[in-house]
């Protein structure tokens, strides 16, 4: 599994720990994760590294009752598509939030959490999750 691979986990530290993505200075679009080519401007694009804002809102969500491999014992848990305040979107778990507050439009902010530890001998993967605020 890709989750337990040490170089992959190490390589993803900036993205998963700091929400590091990038922004195209030509068209102003923010990308998360970082892109190698701006799909809007292509060769005219100029991508610069940036940390994403930690605040956003829920675009849509689901409560997962049958978890995939590595998440079987975490169920039930919430997954959401979140739009950050700079319009970049990502998929994340929503945690530490009362069930009735997890809804479309709810404001969320980033928290740092353990994501998975599939291989008992391997590294533990950490990264971002989000919680409802307000």
């Amino acid at each position, binding site marked *: 599994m*890709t989750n337990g691979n040490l170089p992959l986990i190490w390589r993803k530290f900036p993205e998963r720990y700091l929400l590091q993505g990038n922004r195209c200075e030509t068209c102003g679009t923010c990308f998360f994760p970082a892109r190698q080519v701006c799909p809007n401007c292509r060769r005219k694009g100029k991508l610069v590294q940036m940390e994403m804002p930690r605040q956003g809102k829920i675009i849509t969500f689901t409560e997962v009752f049958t978890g995939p491999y590595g998440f079987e014992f975490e169920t039930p848990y919430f*997954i959401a598509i979140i739009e950050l305040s700079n319009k970049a979107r*990502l998929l994340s778990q929503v945690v530490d939030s009362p069930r009735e507050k997890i809804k479309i439009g709810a404001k969320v902010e980033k928290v740092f959490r353990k994501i998975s530890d599939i291989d008992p001998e391997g590294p533990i993967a950490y990264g971002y999750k989000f919680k409802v605020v307000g």
Partner: protein
Amino acid sequence: MRSVSIIGVGCTSFGEHWQKSLRELVAEAGIQAVLTSGLVGKDIEAIYGGCMASGRFIAQEHIGALLADQLGLNPIPSTRVEAACASGGVALRSGFLSVASGAYDIVAVGGVEKMTEVSTSEAAIALGGAGDQETELFHGASFPALYALMARKHMHDFGTTEEQMALCSVQAHKNGMLNPNSQFHKEISVEEVMHSGYVASPLKLLDCSPITDGAAAVILCETEKARKMGIPAVEIIGAGQASDSLALSGRKSLTEVAATKKAAEIAYKQANLGPKDIDVVELHDCFSIANIMAIEDLGFFKKGEGGKALEQGKTALNSEISVNPSGGLKCGHPVGATGVKQAVEIFEQLLGKAGKRQVKDAKIGLAHNVGGSGATAVVHIMRRL
């Protein structure tokens, strides 16, 4: 481009084939296709085979060569095509292009998946490969969860209900009763779907397609040559394919599959037809919400009105638009085979050979195959030659 027609088809029954390996499934469908075309193996110049994840399912790659070998067709070129659950549809389009271009006159297109050799959990890992591993599956998103995210948004934006989604499964199983190759022969009720338990809310177990073994095959032939042979044939008059973000979060809209709209637009334009001209459609209903989005994205109903159309019975067999007479993916979804099986069903429908599930006077058919949560879509439009 030259015109291309389907002149022979083959399909195994869909289900849990404990007694057959991938190679036997492929041979069964392939031999049937060659026999119905009236050709002999020697006439076939190349093979395109759709297969999504044989490496994960049976630890076997190099499926292209395996197909040629098992069908006794060495040394013709044989190419595996992979596009997740759209592998079959993309294989069909690859075969279509190879004949349309003039590279070959006759090719075989196959699709296969042997999914029951592994546990359900391992099968889910294999299928997860269709999504974005590093940014979405990593966070605990399963495939039902990705479609559930789209379903929730569709409900929020358009008032689509869980009961309307349940109707997709009810209708699929009803049609499946009439298809001898269906994995299930059991009618279900809206209530049964509603009580089948959430997999990822709002999607329940009976909103999901099953794990299936199966294979399907078609023989493609340059149309003039097919005419001269004088055998019943179905012409492919439009073939569109499109791509989109692998990650669901990268899509511009979560209530449509943009790749489907694009692929359909290309296919309709080639065929010089529109949604109103279609009599029968085999569409990609891997989850109930996929059915609702597809009938909207293919242009049969306005965006947001798919749920209501189902409620009004407009997609039932021999109604406004006959959707999935075969029972669709809910009646078996061997991922690599599905796209080819759809073409087999349309072929039989257009030639009036679909038995009890025959759509009356079906002249124009459409097959719609999707990979993953919508990162690939393929649409083929066909008519009786």
